[in-house]
């Protein structure tokens, strides 16, 4: 076996010592100096993001690098690994200059102090009120801003135009409430063969927060208190929504695989063209149509009407250990400009997070996109410090709760027990 030579080992130790000293030296000035908010002086900025939204970050970076002295380098990590990667980087005090996170995790990262306080910088923005407010609020901790919107992804009803026509339904008249949604799904399911009426992520925490909560909001209900500390998952409004999906699964209208769908094959199921209508992310519209499946888009509705959406996507802030805060802010301000919002986001069929750019030269070509963009104003982003541990993580109490409500022997008991467990998880320090 080859050993490590003493010389090498000594060098390694010296190098790590130098690194540690270097880091301490770098972490001195962390104040949010208002004198030079944004600087473009040829700095190289590191930017981390998760694979799911890598495309948007790269498009931003390419466009920015093309006409700025600063250069942004994007590194993407697999979605599941990303939180661990950030936590280890924080522990080593080696966070990147800029990093994005799922918007629902933003309060946790802000509370842990992983981002630089950018309250002054955000306040100085002339278009602060035009930023998607639900999204922006999730980057706030104790009245201080730590992150701004980076990408937006909303939950909508996606329906298959061909299957609608084949089932004798009018594809220009998507369901106006959940009862109609269930009727449409049943009619399409009756086509038989390998066609199914609907689909959902029955073993996926994030998916169901994203697709089911808007139905409760549309009906004027709540699933969690505004401070993210108390769950009301056992409210009638939520129980009714679960009961409807449960019935669709029991009747075989929802595809059997929906029960075990943990997320990875969700998109594939819709791309197969064999699902009639299902709630899902708005950004999938393009990905599904790439496979030659023509899709319609409609808002997610409540049991008897109303409409709402979950405004998801990513937030981005400046790593607290970065020494290039002003340069990083230059990039962030640019991502919020018309140049970026219209020429990068809207051109790439994305949703602008500036509400004043909802209607633009690219979106007006497709009425479905205008409909999606207009939902931004109606949507919500739930706020909770312990969101990940309570709802998204595979071991979260939310998954146990909704699986009990959708597939378990006693839905009511599952929701009552679940509410207590969810609240306990939300309040855990």
């Amino acid at each position: 076996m080859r050993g490590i030579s003493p010389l090498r080992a000594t060098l390694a130790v010296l190098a790590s010592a130098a690194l540690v000293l270097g880091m301490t030296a770098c972490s001195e000035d962390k104040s949010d100096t208002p004198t030079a908010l944004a600087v473009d002086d040829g700095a190289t900025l590191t930017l981390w993001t998760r694979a799911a939204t890598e495309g948007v970050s790269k498009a931003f970076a390419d466009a920015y690098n093309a006409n700025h002295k600063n250069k942004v380098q994007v590194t993407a990590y697999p979605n599941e690994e990303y939180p661990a990667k950030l936590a280890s980087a924080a522990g080593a005090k080696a966070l990147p200059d800029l990093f994005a996170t799922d918007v629902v995790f933003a309060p946790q990262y802000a509370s842990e102090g992983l981002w630089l306080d950018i309250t002054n910088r955000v306040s100085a923005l002339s278009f602060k009120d035009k930023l998607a407010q639900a999204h922006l609020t999730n980057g706030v901790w104790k009245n201080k801003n730590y992150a701004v919107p980076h990408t937006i992804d909303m939950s909508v009803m996606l329906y298959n135009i061909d299957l609608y026509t084949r089932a004798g339904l009018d594809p220009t008249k998507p369901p106006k409430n959940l009862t109609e949604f269930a009727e449409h799904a049943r009619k399409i399911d009756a086509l038989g063969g390998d066609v199914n009426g609907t689909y959902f992520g029955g073993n996926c925490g994030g998916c169901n927060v994203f697709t089911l909560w808007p139905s409760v909001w549309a009906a004027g209900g709540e699933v969690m208190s505004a401070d993210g500390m108390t769950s009301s998952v056992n409210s009638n409004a939520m129980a009714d929504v679960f009961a409807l999906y449960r019935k669709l699964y029991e009747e075989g209208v929802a595809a059997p695989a929906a029960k075990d769908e943990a997320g990875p094959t969700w998109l594939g199921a819709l791309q197969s063209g064999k699902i009639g209508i299902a709630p899902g992310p708005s950004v999938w519209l393009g990905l599904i149509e790439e496979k030659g499946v023509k899709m319609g888009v409609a808002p997610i509705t409540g049991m008897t009407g109303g409409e709402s959406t979950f405004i998801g996507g990513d937030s981005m802030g400046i790593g607290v250990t970065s020494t290039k805060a002003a340069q990083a802010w230059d990039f962030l301000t640019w991502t919020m400009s018309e140049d970026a919002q219209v020429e990068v986001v809207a051109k790439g069929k994305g949703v602008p997070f500036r509400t004043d750019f909802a209607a633009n030269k690219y979106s007006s070509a497709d009425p479905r996109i205008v409909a999606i963009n207009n939902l931004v104003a109606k949507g919500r982003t739930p706020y909770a410090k312990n969101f990940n541990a309570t709802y998204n993580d595979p071991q979260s109490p939310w998954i146990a709760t909704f699986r009990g409500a959708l597939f378990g022997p006693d839905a009511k008991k599952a929701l009552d027990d679940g509410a207590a467990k969810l609240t306990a998880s939300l309040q855990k320090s």
Partner: protein
Amino acid sequence: MQRRSWVGAAYAAPTALVVGVLFIVPLVLVGWMSLNDWPLLGAPEINFPENYTGLTDNELIADAAWFTAKYTIVITALLFSVAFGLALLVQHQRRGVGFFRTAFFLPVAVGFASASLLFLGLLSSEIGPFHTDTYISWTSGSPNLALGSAVTLVLWRFAGFNMLIMLTGLQAIPLEIYEAARIDGASRFQLFRRITVPLMRPTIALVLTLMIAGSLLAFDQFWILTRGGPDNRTTSLVMVIYREAFIRLDLGSAAAISVVLLGVLVVFNVIQFGVLRRRSQ
């Protein structure tokens, strides 16, 4: 004399340094972490015994501990039998034996996480090659199916490696002993029971220790293949540590579980070595 001891120390220094930096320091750090409220950034604060008392009201830990124990028993029994069986099959030089040895060992060359992903694709009803008329989910349809899939993966991935260790043990047994026993009229079963197994004891001890320690620390196969599901029925202890550290960002609590798990491992190893030493004396 003094010069020689200096040279000796110098030779040992690199190893001591590596062990110190990569093992002793992290070990002490984890112990210290478990006594503190340890934020990602900023100064830790001593909060002993909160991280330890907190373990008792974490329902997930009890379930995960029970599942990890069950998995360890199942996989150790199966993996040991399969690996020993394979080693016995390919121990003698025969035509084509090289091919089989290579074939059995080959899965070891695949990274474990990659192997788990391969199985995830293989067992997927969406993209996998196996299609059944009625829908079945091999990785989260039922707790037993999920465990079965993970066990199959681990057997495929690790049987060859353990076979190799046992093969070296088998080949270290002098042929004369077998010959002498055969001349005395020993049957094949007697040869196996009275000669092979006793002389293999140190090798068996090594293999069992590796298997049990590896299974108690199981993570990749469940993290990737079953995500701990369905309904937390395949959540291993290390997954709980991961959740505490990287999802809840509670490093103190994660360190406390690690310390307890380390204690269990030490106890197991001491018992194992004790039993085996006594028997071989």
